[in-house]
């Protein structure tokens, strides 16, 4: 495929998936393991004894497994696009898509697991709503930053296309 026919959808899809996966690892490592907050079922089975801690750990492990799978799919999409030469190579677009994916996941996960289902909260306790709102805000912030970088990437690509055609 010629360079002028490259689409940015593959790069954005790969970036979103990698952002979700890597963001999931940050969440799992920092919140679940180091701080020991945000355990998957902590509102249903608070990890206050070894049995409930083990059950929460099992579901935290499933979360990590799906985050890993998402990362692998993102890498596969990226590698396939590079091999077939069908995706653009724009740093702002790629970084923006990763930030968008991370932010989107934080927002959707917060919306579904914290607000809708009440499966768990970021930091259970007296100020859990504030922590949950902060988590949603981090999602919007990362998503907004990602959106801005995507726009920058597209503007750069458009201006280069125009320059190369004149």
């Amino acid at each position, binding site marked *: 495929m010629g360079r002028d026919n490259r689409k940015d959808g593959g790069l954005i899809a790969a970036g979103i*998936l990698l952002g979700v996966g890597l963001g999931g690892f940050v969440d799992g490592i920092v919140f679940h393991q180091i701080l020991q907050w945000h355990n998957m079922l902590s509102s249903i089975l608070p990890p206050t004894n070894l049995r409930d801690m083990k059950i929460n750990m099992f579901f935290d492990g499933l979360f990590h497994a799906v985050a890993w799978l998402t990362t692998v799919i993102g890498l596969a999409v990226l590698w396939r696009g590079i091999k077939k030469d069908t995706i653009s190579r*724009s740093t702002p677009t790629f970084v923006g*898509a990763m930030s968008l994916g991370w932010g989107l996941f934080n927002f959707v996960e917060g919306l579904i697991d914290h607000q809708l289902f009440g499966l768990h909260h970021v930091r259970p306790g007296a100020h859990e709503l504030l922590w949950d709102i902060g988590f949603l805000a981090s999602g919007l912030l990362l998503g907004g930053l990602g959106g801005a970088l995507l726009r920058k990437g597209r503007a750069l690509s458009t201006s280069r296309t125009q320059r190369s055609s004149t």
Partner: protein
Amino acid sequence: MPATVALVLACLLGAHPALALACPDCALARRTRAFLREDPNTWDHLALLLLPFLVVWLVAFVWHKRGRTAGTGKDG
């Protein structure tokens, strides 16, 4: 349970996020929470765990299909 998961997904994908934010007190959310507390089992929890991932996978899939021509390639 699959019907509940499907309903929640349709609600989130079909509605404005503000509606979902306002949803913690809706019948569907109450039913789901009651179900989880009543008789949790691995597969149902796994389905719920996968929901946020499913949403972002769908978003990535949509981008993959509709990305526009990006021009000359390397630009940064």
